[in-house]
């Protein structure tokens, strides 16, 4: 039994397995399938200052080894989250992290200010990389100037752990990781979905109501792994790796590439028990490889 504890900056996790925003609801949807207390943490659905209805149907298209989504941040707003949802999930032993999204800098700062005062939420993941909203979202995460603006603004009002989720839809992601670090981020999560699209050749129509959407699943894993590795060489703050992780071996690969913790996303849709299976699988790997502490694996790729 290896020691699975990892620290992402000032935030200790009982193990490196988090669930990715938008793929695990608020956790309770999965209670029949796994023991949520066994996870390192859950990152709840993208939350905005005000409620959002999200995009029109269809919001999803299956693709080779993956899927496109265009949900568009449907959520009930940060206040409903705090008043109605958090009381149902705060008893979990795993960390609750709120993925925070917005269309204006003031939306981010106002919601961050509110979350700063909330017990039981020790961290936020700043979503500056959602490809599915008309304004804001990915626009913040694809220019270093606007990333600087939003991360600095949130940092000035949010005193707990600030994770910034980076967009892969840029030429050099390491620059964005460095920008986030310079603006005071405590960690970066790498990567959000890759922008993509799908067309039905028979009807000649796009498969998504928004035409383009975010690609996730094993199809993006090699890209994600490469980006985690590039970011890990560029910054000192911890990296949380995600993108197509389907099993413990995938998770280990992200740690070897430089991630301190990982997020399980789309895999939750295929196997609702997978997050717990990955925790167990990492433990078995460590035992098999004689690894006493899982943190030994961080950036331990042999080149």
């Amino acid at each position, binding site marked *: 039994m290896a020691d699975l504890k990892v620290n992402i900056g000032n935030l200790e996790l009982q193990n490196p397995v988090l669930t990715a925003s938008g793929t695990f609801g608020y956790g309770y949807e999965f209670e029949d399938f796994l023991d949520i207390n066994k996870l390192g943490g859950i990152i709840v659905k993208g939350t905005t200052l005000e409620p959002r209805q999200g995009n029109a149907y269809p*919001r999803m298209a299956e693709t080779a080894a993956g899927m496109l989504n265009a949900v568009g941040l449907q959520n009930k707003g940060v206040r409903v989250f705090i008043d109605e949802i958090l009381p149902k999930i705060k008893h979990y032993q795993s960390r609750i992290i709120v993925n925070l999204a917005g269309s204006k800098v003031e939306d981010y700062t106002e919601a961050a200010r509110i979350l700063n005062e909330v017990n039981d939420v020790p961290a936020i993941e700043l979503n500056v990389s959602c490809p599915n909203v008309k304004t804001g979202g990915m626009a913040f995460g694809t220019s270093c100037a606007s990333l600087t603006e939003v991360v600095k603004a949130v940092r000035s009002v949010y005193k707990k752990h600030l994770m910034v989720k980076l967009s892969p839809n840029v030429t050099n992601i390491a620059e964005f990781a460095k920008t986030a670090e310079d603006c005071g981020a405590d960690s970066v999560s790498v990567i959000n979905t890759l922008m993509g699209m799908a067309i039905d050749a028979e009807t000649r129509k796009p498969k998504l109501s928004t035409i383009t959407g975010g690609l996730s699943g094993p199809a993006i894993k090699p890209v994600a792994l490469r980006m985690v590795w590039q970011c890990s060489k560029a910054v000192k703050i911890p990296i949380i790796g995600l993108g197509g992780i389907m099993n413990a071996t995938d998770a280990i690969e992200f740690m070897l590439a430089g991630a301190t913790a990982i997020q399980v996303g789309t895999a939750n849709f295929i196997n609702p028990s997978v997050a717990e299976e990955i925790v167990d699988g990492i433990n078995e790997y460590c035992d098999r490889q004689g690894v006493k502490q899982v943190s030994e694996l961080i950036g331990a790729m042999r080149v």
Partner: protein
Amino acid sequence: MNKKSKALLPVLKNTKLNSTHFVLSLQLPANHPEIWPGQFVEVLVEGSPDTFLRRPISVHDVDEKNHTLDLLVKIVGAGTEKLSHLHEGDQLDIVYPLGHGFSLARQDQKVLLAGGGCGVAPMLYLARKLKEAGADCCVAIGGKTSADILTADAYSKLAQVAILTEDGSKGDKGMITAHPWFGAELKSFSKVYVCGPDPMMKAIGQLATDAGVYCEVSLENLMACGIGSCLCCTVSTHEGNVRACMEGPVFDVTKLKDWNHNPVCHG
């Protein structure tokens, strides 16, 4: 609430109905969660990156004595095509039971069940449960041709059955709504249950609403997770966007705002 489960269920048999439809009979564990008419399961299609997501398939029938679950499947793409080759002794990875199913009826209430094409799938288990509850059931089955009329014989012990095809190749000729049950007799029913193509559900839903009869429809939306987390299967209702996999797939028709224009499912 029903407890959900992920399980590997043995295939007992695969019965071919015609060139595009088949019924998979699965062995449930003795302690299986309670399954309600109108609920669905999410089936994993193994061994192909092109069928990455699970396929949502409605519950066709449950034999509570012998612990069997039947799924009526239409071949609409690579995933369902692969499922059509399963045979006795294979195992199927399913997540079940999912979603909010049909409401039942009280004893002596007269109810109308309408299934169009493959949409007849959830009606058999519903008719069985309604019969147990003492309701008086009428079942209308419609399709374009005789090839779309599936499992009609199974209803004979449970209900009065009417069959209609658009080309007249089986039963009466005409659209399902041409039957008197959807005309002058509609008001005599306490409830109408519909599953089929959107235009059919919409038409019957409108007739029922106009006649003041409560009507439930079962929607078939594209889904990823089936357990309420991905928000992909959204349905526009008068109370905002809700999830077909949790608040549905069965809805009171008067609650629906815009009908989704369903593209082909990820078969």
